[in-house]
């Protein structure tokens, strides 16, 4: 296995006293796609929200155990820096309705008050939109509101917004669950392109999607990590009975 960029050690996550993730140990290999799948409520979204310290924003939420980002304890890094290094794309496309497409892409800089030269921002916008395979569709309407775009385009705009911060990893929380099949396959293609230069962790409840796009898959059930491994192996010869039952559609 390649070197791990993100690693969890006995990670547990709580809402109040309720434990939603139980002592998870995982290693996310660099520049690969890792899928986290499992039935609703298994803690997969909470798990990735721990990876950029978004989990702790919820009142009463807490974690125990350790997460390492490039062997550095995530809790020792300023959460604001963590979130710049580990980007996130959400289930429902959420471009900022008050900003233009252009401003949406550089929203991370604007929000953080980072000033750059106009030409520099122009370059970041073009590069990020190209990486997100959206440039050709929006290059003539950069200064219109992002909310004019279709759902799939909006989601790619959100991917561009995350990429613009030049993160080391991005977390995708069921990024295609609100999209139609065509928009979904575009995003899946895009993920295949992106993984050459960036680490991708994707949460999905769609097992076929996990099989199509990931190198590694983690299967979670009731807050526990049941099985983790090479996607092909996990799908063809699952070690655990629960994994097999989930893959064959007995529950989930």
């Amino acid at each position, binding site marked *: 296995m390649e070197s791990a960029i993100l690693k969890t050690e006995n990670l547990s996550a709580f809402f109040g006293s309720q434990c939603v993730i139980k002592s998870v140990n995982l290693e996310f290999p660099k520049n690969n796609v890792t899928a986290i799948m499992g039935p609703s409520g298994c803690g997969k979204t909470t798990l990735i929200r721990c990876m*950029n310290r*978004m989990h702790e*924003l919820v009142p009463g939420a807490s974690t125990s155990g350790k997460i390492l980002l490039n062997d550095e304890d995530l809790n020792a890094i300023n959460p*604001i*820096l963590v*979130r*710049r290094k580990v*980007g*996130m794309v*959400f289930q*429902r496309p*959420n*471009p*900022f*309705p*008050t*900003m233009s497409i252009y401003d949406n892409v550089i*929203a*991370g800089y*604007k*929000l*953080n*008050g980072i000033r750059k030269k106009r030409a520099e921002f122009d370059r970041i916008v073009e590069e990020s939109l190209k990486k997100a395979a959206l440039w050709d569709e929006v290059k003539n309407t950069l200064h219109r*509101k992002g*909310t004019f775009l279709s759902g799939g385009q909006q989601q790619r705009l*959100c991917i561009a*917004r*995350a990429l613009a*911060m030049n993160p080391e990893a991005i977390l995708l929380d069921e990024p295609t669950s609100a999209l139609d099949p065509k928009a979904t396959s575009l995003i899946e293609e895009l993920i295949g392109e992106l993984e050459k230069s960036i680490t991708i962790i994707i949460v999905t409840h769609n097992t076929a999607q996990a099989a199509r796009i990931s190198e590694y898959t983690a299967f979670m059930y009731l807050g526990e990590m049941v099985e983790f491994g090479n996607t092909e192996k996990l799908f063809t010869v699952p070690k655990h009975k629960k994994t097999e039952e989930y893959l064959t559609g007995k529950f989930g």
Partner: protein
Amino acid sequence: MKSEPTFKGILYLSAASTIFLLAGLFFTLLRHSLPSLKAFGFGMFYRSVWNPVSGDFGAFPFIVGTLFTAFLALAFCTPFALAISLLLGEYWRGTTWSGILQTLIEVPAGIPSVIYGFWGLFLVVPLIRSLESKLHVAPYGVGIFTASVILSIMIIPYAASLMIETIKLVPYDLKEAAYSLGATRVEVIRNVVLPYARSGVFAGILLALGRALGETMAVTMVIGNSNFIPKSIFAPANTMASIIANEFTEASDPLHLSSLIEVGVLLFFLTMVINMIGKAIIRRTVSGAYG
């Protein structure tokens, strides 16, 4: 399904009667202000003499007084209303405290304005008087500044309750998106919450302004009732509403009475125009946000 036309008829009738009432109100005011309109024409707008003894009437000092007190009150009220609504609508959103405090904030809106007037006379006026003597200006205690302070307290509930509701409506997705890009809470408020809620924030300010322009009783009690153009923010003055309240009962001269009614017509127009401008601005900011 016979009740359908009847029901629709009742709706039409109610809608038509409000328009009818408004028109009726306007025409009555206009008819009674005819003598003064004949005597002074549009002079009422810009003439600054108001002398019931010599029968000379110009409402300019009261237009100035009205705009001065209302906008000064707005300037005092807005920062507080915004701070309250950010605290209750964003920081404490959904907590028990937020609910309790929001109810408490709305209570003052139901207090009769004469009570504010009393409170102003007994508490605020002496305070302002001592402030004035420290600043070496004539220590009247009553005047524009005092009226604006009382007004700003009276209009906070109107501004704040609308602002709280709009700030609460900002979708959590958007705030989350901003947090995920490394924004701090203050940055989220400045760049996501306020831009998204700006039309509601503005509507709250406008509602408060409308209330401040027309408020009569409390203002009449603390503004000092002077019929001259105010020279400073501490000077006694009169607003359009307060001059009417003050002189209406003692106006025996028909021209005096008619002039007071014309001031009423002016106030009617002033509030209408300011409301229309405000609505146009809201429409523009809304279309700016979504379209």
